[in-house]
């Protein structure tokens, strides 16, 4: 059979870097080929017909021609461009964060259908939330700090599932060290062991993990997002869960994520 020279694929644009005068190298997440890099020639020219369909975090249908180093984008048509997400600073930052997480965790050319679906669903949720918030504001609702709580929880949900699909599922049922079932009491959390640690192994704790934090994390782990109830978590609890998840991510990636600083900046302003 003759080798295929060009193929169609859906893709979410995770990242772009400028190349040469008017080209861009895109990092794409595709359903069947996983994370790939592709060249978008001339996409920085003002008249480019493709550029608008190849924006960051766009969900597009592409036609790619097989190339030597990079496959080359020959056609692009945006399927969903998450218009509402793009109009709100907070949701944009969350979008950046999702893209950075996926880009860091997913290896090149490994099919990751679960991660693909997760990212797409999460972006859709963010976009819908952004649209709803805009509608409420237009009707005269006052902006409140609680607006962002739901999104913060969604970020934790995304982190837990992403880690699980990649193979680093957080251990939250049994002690990550001795394996005994965790009791409803204050436990600890140790990223190097990959999850929660019981009080008997407390010499290995990196941080304490309150019962409520453990409960929320377990709830997220076993529930689909559409069924996660609207929880009212106080700021301390939110921060505790975030710190635990971030330390786990930092341990696996051996680095901090750049979007964390940006998310923090927005949090400081509003509190």
């Amino acid at each position: 059979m003759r080798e295929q020279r060009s193929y169609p694929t859906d893709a979410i644009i995770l990242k772009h870097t400028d190349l040469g005068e008017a080209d861009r190298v895109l990092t794409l997440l595709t359903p069947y080929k996983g994370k790939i890099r592709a060249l978008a020639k001339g996409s920085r020219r003002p008249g480019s017909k493709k550029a608008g369909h190849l924006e960051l975090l766009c969900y597009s249908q592409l036609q790619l021609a097989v190339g030597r180093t990079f496959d080359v984008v020959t056609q692009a048509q945006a399927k969903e461009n998450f218009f509402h997400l793009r109009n709100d600073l907070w949701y944009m930052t969350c979008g950046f964060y999702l893209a950075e997480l996926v880009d860091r965790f997913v290896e090149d050319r490994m099919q990751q259908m679960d991660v693909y679906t997760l990212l797409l669903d999460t972006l859709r949720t963010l976009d819908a939330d952004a649209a709803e918030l805009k509608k409420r504001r237009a009707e005269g609702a006052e902006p409140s700090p609680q607006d962002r709580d739901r999104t913060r929880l969604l970020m934790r949900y995304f982190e837990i599932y992403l880690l699980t699909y990649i193979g680093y599922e957080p251990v939250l049922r049994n002690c990550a060290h001795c394996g005994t079932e965790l009791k409803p009491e204050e436990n600890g959390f140790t990223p190097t062991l990959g999850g929660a640690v019981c009080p008997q192994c407390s010499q290995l704790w990196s941080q304490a993990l309150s019962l409520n934090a453990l409960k929320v994390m377990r709830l997220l782990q076993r529930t689909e997002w559409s069924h996660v109830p609207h929880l009212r978590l106080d700021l301390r609890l939110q921060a505790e869960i975030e710190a635990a998840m971030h330390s786990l991510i930092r341990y696996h990636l051996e680095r901090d994520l750049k979007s964390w600083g940006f998310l923090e900046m927005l949090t400081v302003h509003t509190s």
Partner: protein
Amino acid sequence: MSDVAAPVAALVEELSKLPGVGVKTAQRLTFFILRSPTDQARRLAEAIIRVKESIVYCSRCYNITETDPCSICSNPGRDQDSICVVEEPLDVLALEKTGVYKGLYHVLHGALSPLNGIGRKDIRIDELLKRLVDGSVHEVILATNPGFEGDYTAGVIKDDIKNKITVPHMKVTTLARGLPLGSDLEYADEGTLSRALEGRREM
């Protein structure tokens, strides 16, 4: 390139570092310079040195200039109460060519991009805020590039102005989004089209 004279090889190597210039083009340029009159080559060399030695950043708008403050900032004929914020010095050139805008500029030298590691400290946002505190500026026009990163940068600046600058009657505006001249509707993406619809106006 060991079989050509060392100075020629050196020039080819330097030229091929330029954007859009590969080894072949660099060779062509080198041999053109080699054959051209000496004073022409000297003018080229001097122009390159001059551009590095005499160009500084304007201490107010951070545009590239020979004199500080730059010719736009020091021109009393320009509206002192509006600042147009752009990403690169080339954007100033583009806007100046229109001849429509008569105010001042502020060059950020980049756009925020968490994915490429460009944060607040890498571009000149704080310098912009410093120019706004005294209250003489009444309109800030955010003219960052119309992409995700440019929009994001504009969002951050707007947020900063809202939170940190307490000047009455400060207007923050952004450039209109729409269809480029001479383009085809059928190729336009939904984002551009929907913004073009939002910004439609009566004829």
